[in-house]
């Protein structure tokens, strides 16, 4: 799973441009006989193996897309202006390596040198509109030979294993969830399992709604990478999650509230099996569960996440033990789900 995760993060798959990730997942499914299809919006839906002992239909979702940038204007002197795809803090952008478009043209994100910034500029948050991508083009004409407006821009950040069981990479949100679901597909389930690798989560949970309306599940489990602010000067009740303490279970965020039965079942499973877990202590943000929950005639949902420090940046960090424990928790809880729900 670790190697797959690292490889998944190397792929560029900004919202609306997830095909490389989708292709990788299809090619690397351990069981080639699994039925799968790609829907009209680009979601990859893989049907897991089932022994048919329960009539429950379970959707497990992780999003393939990642945050990044898009070229929206090329200046006379060949610099690329851009807008964001998904939520990005402009402060993390200065000095980043990026790759632009299909041909992955290398670039760096520039800003005027500190010597030229006035007091106000030095003391306030840099505005996106004052940043640009430098691909070392001489002028607009030269730049247009290499890139065009509408090109996606991905962070250029190779995965690195470091410290004790940690990985640094871009796009851990949510290739981590994708990697876990790929493992879940190696098992035989008592119910119909639909593994949904969704698109366009980062720009408004758009793929998940389409997938959920197609699959029409009874239960939706969303596997995410989530905020982890266990860093200096953050109060303990505001850290959201703590790295190394296990996967987090969300009771609520801005897009969904956990189904009580599912929440208690996962909680009890973790306690019973001695699997480390934590409650996510903040209720900010939202994810695919928001759209799955209100799809069709309504779906019971739960979100389980792996803590990711510096999320939505090229240097996200996660603890691989958290990821293993997430797989373990989700697997154990799902196998006993029919019993827990009386199905």
């Amino acid at each position: 799973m670790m190697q797959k995760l690292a490889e998944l993060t190397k792929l560029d798959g900004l919202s609306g441009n997830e095909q490389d990730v989708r292709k990788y997942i299809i090619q690397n499914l351990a069981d080639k006989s699994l039925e799968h299809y790609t829907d009209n919006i680009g979601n990859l839906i893989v049907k897991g193996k089932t022994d048919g002992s329960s009539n429950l239909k379970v959707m497990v979702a992780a999003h393939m897309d990642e945050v990044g940038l898009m070229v929206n204007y090329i200046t006379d002197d060949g610099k690329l202006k851009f807008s964001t795809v998904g939520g990005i803090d402009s402060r993390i952008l200065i000095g980043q390596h990026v790759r632009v478009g299909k041909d992955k043209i290398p670039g760096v994100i520039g800003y005027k040198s500190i010597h030229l910034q006035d007091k106000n500029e030095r003391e306030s948050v840099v505005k996106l509109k004052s940043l640009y991508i430098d691909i070392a083009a001489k002028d607009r004409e030269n730049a247009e030979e290499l890139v065009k407006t509408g090109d996606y821009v991905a962070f250029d950040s190779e995965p690195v294993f470091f410290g004790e069981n940690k990985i640094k990479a871009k796009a851990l949100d949510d290739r981590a969830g994708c990697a876990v679901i790929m493992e879940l597909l190696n098992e035989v389930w008592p119910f119909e399992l639909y593994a949904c690798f969704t698109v366009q989560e980062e720009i408004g949970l758009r793929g998940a709604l389409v997938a959920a309306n197609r699959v029409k599940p009874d239960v939706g489990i969303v596997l995410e990478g989530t905020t982890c602010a266990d860093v200096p000067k953050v109060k303990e009740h505001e850290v959201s999650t703590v790295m190394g303490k296990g996967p987090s279970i969300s009771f609520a965020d801005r897009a969904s509230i956990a189904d009580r039965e599912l929440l208690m079942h996962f909680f009890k499973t973790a306690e019973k099996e001695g699997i480390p877990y934590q409650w996510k202590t903040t209720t900010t943000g939202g994810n695919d569960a928001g759209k799955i929950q209100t799809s069709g005639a309504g779906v019971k949902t739960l979100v389980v996440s792996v803590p990711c420090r510096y999320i939505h940046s090229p240097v996200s960090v996660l603890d691989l033990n958290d990821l293993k424990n997430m797989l373990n928790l989700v697997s154990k809880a799902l196998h006993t789900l029919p019993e827990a729900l009386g199905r």
Partner: protein
Amino acid sequence: MITLLRELTGAYGPSSREEEIRNTIERKISPNVDDIYTDALGNLIAVKKGSGNGKRIMLAAHMDEIGLVASYIDEKGFIRISNIGGINPYVAVGQRVQFHNGITGCVCYEENITDFKDLKLDRMYIDIGTQRREITLDCIMPGDIAVFCGEAIEQNGKFISKALDDRIGCAILIELIETLKDCPNEVVFVFTVQEEVGLRGAGPAAFSIKPDLAVAVDVTGTGDTPECKPLALQLGKGPAVMIKDNRTISHPMVKNALIECARKNNIPYQLEVMSVGGNDAGTIHTAAGGIPAGAVSIPCRYLHRPCEMVDKNDALNAVKLLNAFVMSPMA
């Protein structure tokens, strides 16, 4: 109505934890409906069959109330909180709140806040009188939700209580269920979940019911208190027929039928035009290929506070108005 209201507002039921209020309502209405069931999200759906070839009308009132969710329990046993639904920190300060199991706490704030502009829920907490994390965890776990305390009373022709938003709507539908006889249309009464967190229950309910038209019954703000923002709604001037709010523009067919019913039956009514807020009609009218929808709103002062106030006659007139509406033959 006060006896019913006291029971309804006293039932615990923040968004996503509606079991108790749902059971309370189910007990009351099941003898008087033809079919009753709870869907995946917890919406309580009760059907009164029509006597002819009428339409299927969905009436929705939400069961859930706002609350404070326990997000973290610190070493000393204090409970850190986040909001479930719209809770103003200024309103929450100093309130007595209660969890599902009866555990009661006070909502307090970090004492080093000197300017109330800095008052945010993440600098506030609930104190249930324990000294250690372990003791708090014996009765409260993260994810548990506390609601305001504030028993229902009737005084000077007004009802005052916590959770009148929208237990007054639930009470109106319950009264209607009891009085409705020989209706030409099929009426599907839906007591919805999770309205306060984004109208999440009503859409899926409408998707499965696929009514011909729908009316949400909820509360709305007023413009009749000292130095308040101008708003053409007052307590005691009748239920309001919604023209628009921030989530819905009422379907003309529904809106006009409601107004006509009020006029014909000499029921006082007001017109509601809001630029903020929304009710269940917001997710109903875009569900299942589109459903003509509107709302009957009960003017309510002090929304989302433990002392919400509505006029008794507005509520009784809403029952009359909805009765006339569902009894009318729909073309």
